[in-house]
């Protein structure tokens, strides 16, 4: 049987030279021309993913999830000028905005009294040596491809951390596993995703 699993998607694993990255282009147009049509396309693709992201942690009600979707998409519009396709994939860039908004919203709901927002912990994009950028470029498409081959138990743990926003110990108690098992699955997953990690 021939499985045709070909999502026409911004960051599909095509070689980067031949790749037409629709979402990076949209972000570019928003930054340059305040292009509302490009924004609408981006919204129709990412807002449903954002809503899935907001609901996956079961920390938010449907109302808060809608609020988060709006907040993230508005931020994408406002910050598009800071997006650099050479340094980050559109998916990753939008993910970090979503993550920050979720963290801040969670803290607001918990009535945290703080002057710091999650965004303050974002790294200023810096001009590092070309090889670092090249390395990231190659790697970020690889991560996406390699993700498909992760064993389910490793993929599950990583998804709970990133999508559901759970700490390792929350994941451990939810899955009824020793913390050490969660940590070693994470470590194995990161190795399989070929993320350089020297400690």
């Amino acid at each position, binding site marked *: 049987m021939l499985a045709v699993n070909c999502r026409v998607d911004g960051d599909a694993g095509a070689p980067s030279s031949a790749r037409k990255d629709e979402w990076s282009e949209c972000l570019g147009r928003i930054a340059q021309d305040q292009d509302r049509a490009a924004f609408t396309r981006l919204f129709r693709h990412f*807002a449903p993913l954002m809503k899935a*992201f907001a609901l996956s942690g079961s920390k938010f009600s449907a109302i808060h999830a809608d609020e988060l979707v709006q907040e993230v998409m508005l931020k994408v519009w406002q910050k598009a000028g800071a997006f650099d396709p050479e340094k980050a994939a559109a*998916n990753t860039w939008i993910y970090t905005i979503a993550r920050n908004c979720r963290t801040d919203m969670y803290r607001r709901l918990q009535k*945290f009294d703080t002057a710091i927002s999650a965004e303050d912990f974002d*790294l200023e994009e810096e001009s590092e040596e070309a090889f670092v950028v090249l390395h990231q470029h190659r790697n970020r498409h690889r*991560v996406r491809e390699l*993700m498909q081959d992760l064993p389910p138990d490793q993929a599950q743990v990583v998804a709970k951390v990133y999508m559901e926003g759970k*700490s*390792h110990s929350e994941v451990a108690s939810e899955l009824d596993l020793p913390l050490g098992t969660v940590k070693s699955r994470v*470590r194995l997953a990161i190795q399989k995703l070929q993320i350089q990690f020297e400690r």
Partner: protein
Amino acid sequence: MSQMPRLHPDLDIMMEYSAGTLPLAQSACVFAHIENCAQCRQLVAELSDVGGALLAGLDPVPVGDSQLDAVLARLDEEPPLQYSAPARAPDSLPAVLQRLMRGDFSDLSWKSIGKSLRISYLSTGDTQHEFALYHIKAGGRVPEHDHCGSEMTLVLEGGFSDAEGSYHKGDFIFRRPGDVHSPTALQSEDCICVAVLDAPLKFMGWKFRWMNPFFKLRAS
């Protein structure tokens, strides 16, 4: 060029940091480390790609056109003012600390513990974790203490040593409950570090044990 830190946060801390699940005070401490650590910045970038890839692979949940219209109607809003870190000389204090301190080390209120240790508590908004600066005089020793909880330490100035080794500017150390140690500042200069605790310290020696009841977690 300043020297690269030698000790870094572990993978699980870095992953929770990049997934946004690390508590606020701990995030601030990790961020203060990676601001001056190119290797960790690279790791955070790659770990964020994991989040990006997972986001792209989620099953979409339908969003109505009313939501789109609501956002389109707000596109002309003035973006909120963002705090932007002032340009920083290399080797200066991490920006996140400058912000939390609102001044210089000398502007803070310090509490003395014995002759060689002073502590200043900073408020991050995290009510579960104490975020404090420790100032140990050159050659001075912190009384032997136990960690009832976890402790993150980041060396800002100078360095210190304990039974397990020596630590220098930029180094990040994570201690788990039950580790007993008695850090001593290097002879050559005073040591200043950040310490983030989730439970109060417990001093072991008879000279300092009387103080334990006074050591409440000062998280705010």
